[in-house]
């Protein structure tokens, strides 16, 4: 048991190392990972300004821009990465190693976290400075809790989708691309989800990021009208449920897909 744990920890670090080193050796990554998303956030902030939207909306965009970096890390650096790994021939080496598949995924996510943290911090700092956003945090403890829970749930969701990438490769890739914008929309990247109407908001909250963002807004702009979805307490409860559910489902799905792949022979088949 102990050796198994150590082996898995080594595996996480081994896989994370690739990204950490990559970020150092290819500084151009920084441009694509940081500068471009920064522009996207800022253009929305400017639009809100131009429309004369309430000032906290600009703040929403800045905070969301930082949070979305973490979601992108999970979706592209982890889930979709399984597709590339399969094409390169790494996936079969990972799958035949005596480790949990979760360690490989965790390694990818952890490795990407370094870059993501830089990106999120820069968006937050520059955004705050450029647009003069002011924050009023009601509880740092709750804020940290919400952040951690959101990450846990989003991570589970990412693992769940990686199981699809493992087997369906290219098809899953297209699907993820297809859903990227709608997800930004539904999570209220650009505006409070409430604006989608009650039903729309309910549906969108199935994506854990939506709940997390909404709670963070409430906590970080306390005192200002933020048009919340639920109370912070409810949202945290839902996030706990989401974290447990997605991680559990991901474990099952990974095992199921791997088995299916081993039965059909698609697990090691490339180019599909």
């Amino acid at each position, binding site marked *: 048991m102990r*050796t198994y744990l*150590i*082996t*898995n920890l*080594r*595996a996480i*670090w*081994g*896989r994370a*190392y*690739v990204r950490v*080193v*990559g970020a150092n*050796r*290819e500084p151009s990554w920084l441009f694509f990972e940081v500068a471009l998303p920064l522009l996207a956030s800022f253009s929305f902030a400017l639009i809100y300004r131009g429309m004369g939207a309430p000032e906290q909306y600009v703040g929403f965009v800045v905070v969301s821009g930082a949070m979305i970096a973490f979601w992108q890390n999970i979706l592209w650096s982890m889930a979709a990465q399984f597709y590339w790994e399969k094409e*390169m*021939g*790494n996936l*079969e*080496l*990972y*799958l*035949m*190693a*005596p*480790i949990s598949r979760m360690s*490989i995924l965790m390694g990818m996510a952890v490795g990407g976290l370094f870059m993501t943290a830089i990106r999120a911090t820069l968006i937050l700092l520059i955004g705050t400075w450029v647009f003069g956003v002011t924050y009023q945090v009601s509880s740092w403890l709750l804020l940290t809790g919400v952040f951690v829970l959101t990450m846990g749930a989003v991570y589970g969701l990412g693992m769940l989708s990686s199981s699809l990438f493992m087997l369906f490769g290219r098809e899953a890739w297209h699907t993820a691309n297809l859903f990227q914008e709608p997800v930004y929309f539904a999570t209220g990247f650009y505006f409070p989800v409430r604006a989608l109407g009650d039903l729309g908001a309910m549906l969108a909250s199935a994506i854990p990021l939506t709940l997390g963002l909404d709670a963070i807004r409430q906590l970080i702009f306390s005192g200002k009208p933020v048009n919340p979805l639920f109370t912070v307490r409810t949202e945290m409860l839902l996030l706990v449920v989401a974290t447990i559910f997605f991680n559990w489902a991901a474990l099952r799905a990974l095992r199921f897909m791997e*088995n299916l792949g*081993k*039965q*059909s*022979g698609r*697990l*090691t088949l490339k180019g599909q």
Partner: protein
Amino acid sequence: MQWSIETRNLRRTFRDRPVRRLFRRAVGTPVPDKVALDSVNVTVRPGELFGLLGPNGAGKTTIIKILSTLLLPSAGEALVDGIDVAKDPDSVRRRVNMVSGGEHSGYGILTVRETIWMFSQFYGVPTKVAKKRADAMIERLNLTESADTKTSKLSTGMRQKMNIIRGFVTDPKILFLDEPTLGLDVGIAREVRAFVSEWISEHPERTVLLTTHYMAEADSMCDRVAIIDQGRVLACDTPANLKRDLAPDCVYQIEVPLWTETISPLDQMPVVRSVAMEHRGDQGRTHLRVILEEEGGIASVTDRLAKRGARVLSMTRLEPSLEDAFLNLVGHGLSSGNGENGAR
């Protein structure tokens, strides 16, 4: 005795993807399942360097994938170190590793050393140990100069050396090598073969299962060889026994003065299975490669040559090659020549 590797009536079939299968059935041209392995029984002892020799599509890779827990058998069993690959894949994984020819694993951004280290981490090898082992192997395979090069800049040969080290660095009890010298030039193929042979002789309790379609590679490296074609094992023995059992015909090379006629001097002799003539105009000689039906036939051959006025200048008895054995069993040669990258 506990076998290192054992397959019992191992069978593997592949079917079309569901949508296509339904479609083909609907239009009345159903495709039968593709049989990749058909009742394969192979046993490998600990300490053996065992070869699977077969043409393209024979099922070699399929066997390796089943043994390395990446594919499930359709029927039958496969045991690695006594453990069923279908029932307890995790225990199998702790004991094995695999390297394939022409593999493009790893990440271009990492160096050779880093890549080997990274893969060793998935097996929980402590960093210090991994680096020490890697350095020793890097030196042995003459890879030192490229050891700190990014893998995206490696040539095919260097890359394959790195892959080989990746497989050995975890010190597996049982190692699978799927066409490890595929696409390598003579020199590098030889280095890789020597490395594998040395490793197994230095670690006599370890086992290597190697697939190849190079005759000479199987002949020179393997303790035992299974000849496999279209998912079936046709024969399994030491290369020496395979040659003896499967090519009992005697093979001779006879030198005669230049033979200018188109039909050979040994035409239509019942004891002769085949004759190949090779004219050496510059030396004024002709070489005859004669395969006899039975050993006693050589006397009548020399008689006939004397009668036809072809004086025997020299006569050598040749050992049948593994290729003769293979031809005899499979009925056709290997598609891409044999020993072409310089085994022996």
